[in-house]
């Protein structure tokens, strides 16, 4: 059953995260809507990536509570949660092997289905047999996006996914993020780039020193 529109995608309630003797998040209380692109903006070390990693349980809060729609995040099986809440990382993370093998790591699929996954991110079908480790930064990041989308996730967490890319590759990924959002996928887009935040954001969360300030 689809969730009621008023229910936020994520609800953070006084979330603290302490690691290596440092408070990385300090009492974060905020909501992230299900519709559109939510940009989480902040300087390096502000805690924005940690906030994102909490959404798919690559981190767990030291205290506080996070809801995914109406469920307590910690009550959801993490493996199931991560297939619903996909993530693409700052640096491309191709696995050794071909592009097809990378896609198959996400889900079983026929070569035709794999071609369609590549098509979603604007990569040609003949990439399937390419060695994933030889792709350019932009191509590799798009393959990683295709791999994540192949899980059938309903939410995409994008952790500064353009920070290592040139302007052309950045523009392509921004466009893909917007297309995904338009097709109904909730997108959380982390960036330290104010101009990119302005270009992408339907909703904006600014984080400073582990606290949400806007």
């Amino acid at each position: 059953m689809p969730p009621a529109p008023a229910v936020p995608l994520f609800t953070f309630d006084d979330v603290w995260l302490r690691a290596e003797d440092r408070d990385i998040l300090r009492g974060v209380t905020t909501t992230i809507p299900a519709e559109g692109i939510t940009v989480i903006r902040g300087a390096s070390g502000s805690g924005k990536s940690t906030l994102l990693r909490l959404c798919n349980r690559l981190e767990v809060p030291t205290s506080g509570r996070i809801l995914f729609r109406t469920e307590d995040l910690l009550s959801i099986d993490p493996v199931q949660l991560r297939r619903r809440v996909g993530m693409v990382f700052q640096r491309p993370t191709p696995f050794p092997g071909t592009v097809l093998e990378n896609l198959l790591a996400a889900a079983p699929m026929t070569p035709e289905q794999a071609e369609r996954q590549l098509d979603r991110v604007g990569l040609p079908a003949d990439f399937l047999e390419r060695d994933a480790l030889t792709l350019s930064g932009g191509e590799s990041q798009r393959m990683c996006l295709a791999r994540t989308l192949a899980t059938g996730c309903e939410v995409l967490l994008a952790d500064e996914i353009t920070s290592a890319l040139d302007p052309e590759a950045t523009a392509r990924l921004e466009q893909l993020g917007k297309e995904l959002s338009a097709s109904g996928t909730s997108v959380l887009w982390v960036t330290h780039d104010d101009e990119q935040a302005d270009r992408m954001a339907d909703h904006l969360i600014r984080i400073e020193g582990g606290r949400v300030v806007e």
Partner: protein
Amino acid sequence: MSNEPTLWGLAASGILVAVAVGISLWRRLGLERSMLWASLRALVQLLLIGSALELIIDPARPLLLSWAWVVLMLLFAGWTSHRRAPEVPGAFVLSLAAYSTSCVVSLGVLFGFSIFPVEGRTVVPLAGMVIGNSLASTVLVGRRIISELDEKRDEVEARLALGMTSTEAGQPYLRAAVRTALIPQVETTKAVGIVFLPGAMVGLILAGAEPLSAVRVQLAVMYLILGSVATTTSVVALGLSRRLFTSDHRLVRVSSPAT
């Protein structure tokens, strides 16, 4: 044993140490003191261990003494592994478990199938072969797993983020580490007899045993070592994967050494 060197013979073999020291002086290697110290240490350590073994493996003494000696070896090996790989969490317990498992499996086969009789004379040296030969590969596999998972943290987390379990996400890196630790032993096993004659066989032949009976003993020992190295590295890999991932499939942050 009819061909063992006399004390005079042993002293004469010291000439070879003098040759090594002479070369060091001649080529200005600066290793003379180290060579003399190493040779002296080897002499004292082996004499001490030989005397202790004489006492322990004496057939008149209870077999329990030999097993107690094995336990001491296990504890010492666990401590050595911990010292050599301090970055591996829980290295002492983990390697102790690995060496113990390996001893149970390897000695279980050798004694269970009556390949060797259960005597102090066999228990202590065979356990020593298992533990001694597994030590380097245990340390290697532990360090390798830590550095692999640390260096490829992004890749491992990308696998977890796709909804893989920690077992699935860690498998390629654990497999690579175990392979790295096992390959030298496999290569040694392949090269034996062609490239080099192993120590146990040389020792037996020098001591007057028939070459073919020395070969039989050596083969059993080589297979023992191969089996024990495979067992210890697998136990360490399994144990470490449980320590490096949480029960909710997150990768624990453990820094590899700066080297």
